[in-house]
């Protein structure tokens, strides 16, 4: 079947088998920043924004996402200009192997879109579905707070 997805702002018709997941379809379409991890909704590496909410794309059947607006990690940057979250992850050294990073960024983008001034506890809750085996999450929390501050127009400290 052909479904319509708006992926990173561009509407496109996409071929999908009835039982295929959104993760599989997005990666086949070239959005390989969407990582395939556990494929059971536990690790969060496959997170994308679907109609503005961060979801595990491995748990979404593509056919049920017909008509949805999808944002992958590739869609966060504005051309060559990185999203403040991406900048902050680089500045804070919040990336080691990097496999969890796309999903982590998507969960953080969802959080900051509706809560521009989160507490550390709220940040940790927001990324609680994104597993990172390299770090202790401290630098990611710090990076997300740094990005939030910059997006609010605050000084970089």
């Amino acid at each position, binding site marked *: 079947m052909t479904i319509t997805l708006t992926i990173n702002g561009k509407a496109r018709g996409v071929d999908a088998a009835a039982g295929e997941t959104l993760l599989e379809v997005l990666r086949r379409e070239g959005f390989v920043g969407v990582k395939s991890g556990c494929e059971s909704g536990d690790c969060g590496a496959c997170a994308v924004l679907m109609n503005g909410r961060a979801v595990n794309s491995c748990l979404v059947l593509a*056919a049920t996402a017909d008509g949805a607006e999808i944002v992958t990690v590739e869609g966060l940057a504005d051309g060559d200009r990185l999203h403040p979250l991406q900048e902050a992850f680089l500045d804070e050294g919040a990336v080691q192997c990097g496999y969890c990073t796309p999903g982590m960024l998507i969960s953080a983008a969802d959080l900051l879109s509706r809560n521009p001034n989160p507490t550390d506890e709220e940040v940790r809750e927001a990324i*609680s579905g994104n597993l990172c085996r390299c770090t202790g999450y401290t630098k990611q929390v710090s990076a997300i707070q740094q990005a939030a501050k910059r997006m609010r127009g605050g000084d970089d400290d």
Partner: protein
Amino acid sequence: MALHHVESVVHPATLEEAWAEKERRGKTARLVGGGIDVVLYSPSTVSTLIDLKALGLSRIRETATGIAIGATATMTEAIESPALKAYAGGFLVRVLREVASPLQRNLATIGGTIGSAHPWSDVIPALLVLDAKLAVYDGEERTIPLQAYLEGRRGEASPIICTIDLPSDSASSRGTLASFTRTGFDVALLNVACCGRVAGGTWEDVRIAIGGTPGLAARQGAAEDALIGNPATSGTIAAAANAAAGAIDARDDLRASAEYRRTLARVLVERCLTEIVSGTEGGAG
């Protein structure tokens, strides 16, 4: 990963169409809300998915008799609902915030959680003690208690859930859930939900449900009867906890023994009821 047994996904626009598809396809069809359960657990006999999201059943609204939660409202939408935050001291919102991850809660629907009817569900016992009723459709619209839906849901004849109706009678009650897990990511070895109201030192109203026995959650009528109209003392609470522990259908499985589950039930019922009496309920787990 791809579900190779799924051959088609249909998107009915009305309840009548959805029910007709379900009737026509029988066991080979599965109703889909958020879809998580289908992706993770659907049997290979399922070839058609009936997507309910086009039915317009995702609103959460206050009604003359309480709050109606649309079956395809997500857990996140329920958590963010001002009406539910104020209802029963925010009990259901607290429970939902402890379920799965934000990524999953953005997908998982309240109706889907009930329809999946997993014995380890923390949401189902919470809804049972809030005395939830379901508006369902199976060729005709009707309202049934959640407990009756759960008891009758085996087989393909299970109706389509339209709304989960929470009565205004429970709005001023207080509730708490104790879900006993080995790790933060694990499902409950056993869970207990209690909801009640104490007035003048007496139990005016109380409901108790226990899940993961390892069977599906169920109300504990004998324990409730032991409390209602009686003083809210440690003695009556202990008696009710013993009654509940003795009444559950506790069985052994690879996760815990029946004896362990009965001990858990007694301790957790006592803990939940004590929290309600002391007004210290506020954590979901």
